[in-house]
């Protein structure tokens, strides 16, 4: 397969179509419009491909829920404020065990915030976001290539666990042009018995999230919880970078992790032994992998484009095992690698 140069938003769209996504609904919002536009241009020319520009993000998530129930591979995308509107629908998809991909190209918040890249939606994404006891698998790509690979993987995970999956990226990832090679997608493996396609001459089926009997509802909650436990056990992904001799490890994901890599190169040129631990799955968080690092490394610095959200997961993994510092740039501010290197050096020089 040839290498092509594409923007992040277009990479997601192309990867989704190649992975067999045949239904897309979305509502315009910056900085993810190129993805909606890519789907508008390309999905309708494929047999059975549906694109709907919905009247709102709420409508979009419910459209994909319907199409998912009907048996299609489905996707919607938005940016932070729009993702807030989708939460009721995401909760409902989790309850009804409907697979689907939700892409959040995060921007500055809270409120309307701005359209600059940010990472303020980590809590919302990894804690379920909507109401009720549920989780979504959350993938945090850091390169154009990973956008392509993880988009394809997201559809497989969604089917395998019958659950909505989120790609959590930001405006920088969405709009940056990068070379990418599209891998061959896996053939879809999603049994017809989970689809709603009309009863034919057989028994009718229904899909619901409402369970009025509390004992039934409790049972359903525990069933979902068991599924999430399996996911947490089997599906964590992370990357370690220049860890082996590191005196300090930066923990960062997505765009922040890329900036950290640039900073680490500069720091190493000056003899500072800094490495990177990059969670790729944000939920499930690679907690045990991070904790096992602490048997050797005693100083960790969390860097996020937020006031400190993933920081809480790092604390859950490392509190009592190592020192944890934090540096944050919320609200759409993005430091250069050189700026970050200066900050890291200050923390590093305090290590005794």
């Amino acid at each position, binding site marked *: 397969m040839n290498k092509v140069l594409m923007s992040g938003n277009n990479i997601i769209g192309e990867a989704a179509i190649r992975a067999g996504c045949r239904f897309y609904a979305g509502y315009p919002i910056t900085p993810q419009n190129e993805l909606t536009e890519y789907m508008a241009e390309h999905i309708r020319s494929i047999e059975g491909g549906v694109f709907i520009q919905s009247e709102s993000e709420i409508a979009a998530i419910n459209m994909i829920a319907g199409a998912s129930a009907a048996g299609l591979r489905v996707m919607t995308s938005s940016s932070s404020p729009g993702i807030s509107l989708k939460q009721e629908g995401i909760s409902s998809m989790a309850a009804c065990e409907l697979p689907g991909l939700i892409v959040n190209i995060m921007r500055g918040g809270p409120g309307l915030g701005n359209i600059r890249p940010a990472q303020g939606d980590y809590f919302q994404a990894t804690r379920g976001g909507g109401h009720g006891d549920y989780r979504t698998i959350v993938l945090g790509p850091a390169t154009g290539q990973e956008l392509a690979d993880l988009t394809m993987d997201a559809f497989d995970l969604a089917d395998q666990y019958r659950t909505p999956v989120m790609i959590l990226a930001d405006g920088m990832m969405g709009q940056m042009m990068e070379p990418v090679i599209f891998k061959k997608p896996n053939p879809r493996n999603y049994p017809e018995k989970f689809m709603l396609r009309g009863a034919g001459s057989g028994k*009718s089926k*229904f899909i619901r999230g*409402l369970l009025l009997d509390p004992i039934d509802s409790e049972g359903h909650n525990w069933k979902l919880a068991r599924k999430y436990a399996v996911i947490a056990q089997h599906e964590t992904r992370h990357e370690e970078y220049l860890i082996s001799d590191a005196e300090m490890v930066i923990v960062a994901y997505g765009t922040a992790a890329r900036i950290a890599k640039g900073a680490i190169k500069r720091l190493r040129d000056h003899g500072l032994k800094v490495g990177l631990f990059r969670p790729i799955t944000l939920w499930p968080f690679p907690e045990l992998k991070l904790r096992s690092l602490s048997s050797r490394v005693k100083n960790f610095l969390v860097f996020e484009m937020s006031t400190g959200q993933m920081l809480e997961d790092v604390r859950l993994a490392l509190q009592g095992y190592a020192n944890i510092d934090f540096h944050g740039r919320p609200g759409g501010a993005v430091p250069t690698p050189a700026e970050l290197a200066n900050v890291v050096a200050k923390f590093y020089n305090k290590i005794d």
Partner: protein
Amino acid sequence: MAKIVFQHPQSLKHSIFHYCPGCGHSIVHRIACEVIDEMGIRGITIGVPPAGCAVLAYNYFDVDMIEAPHGRGPAMASGIKRSLPDRVVFSYQGDGDLAAIGMAESFHAANRGENITVIFINNAVYGMTGGQMAPTTMLNQKTTTSPAGRQQRLDGYPVKVSEIFSKIGGVTYLERCSVSSPAGVNKTKKAIKKAFQCQLDGLGFSMIEVLSMCPTNWKMSSVDSCKWIDDVLAKEFPPGIYKDEIAALKKAAEGRS
């Protein structure tokens, strides 16, 4: 041999309705199932019940069904129908569901001319949540959230859904009926059948608004509820065909072929 004139519809499950005695929902369920039987479409029909008193419709309709979050039925039905264009897809909605929280989804599904059918139960209150004011509550009607009666200056006017939707380009067939009398029930059944046929013929969006009794929240007997529809509700919401483009669209299609 004896001719069967009345029997339990095949598409209606043999479970006991949870609806209150005298409720219009159970009547509409039954006649919709009769239509599904008569048209022989049980195996290709997919229904979308709402949050509302009809949330458990899947316990009664023996067709594939998926529950929608409150108000989102038309969006979900759009997703299903676009994925499976040869199925009959209907969304079943109350007045709060359709004309308050789900107005945007309903309006835009209609405006896109989605080839789906909406069965819209107008009972002038929020039934499920205990009789609060609905968008279709009458002026001066007492509800738990309009205890002194709905006041137009503070609470707005009853929303005339069929009148408004009849102006939407994507709507093909739109009729307002009532299940307050045997004649009304028969008319409603015919209208639902016509709407499903409109969909089978690929002619676009159809909606049947049904004036429907809620004796419990109206605090009336079943008989008085029927009378209240005829004497009061039907004056504000006159039954009738509000839009019918079926013949014109068929003719245009014939002209093309």
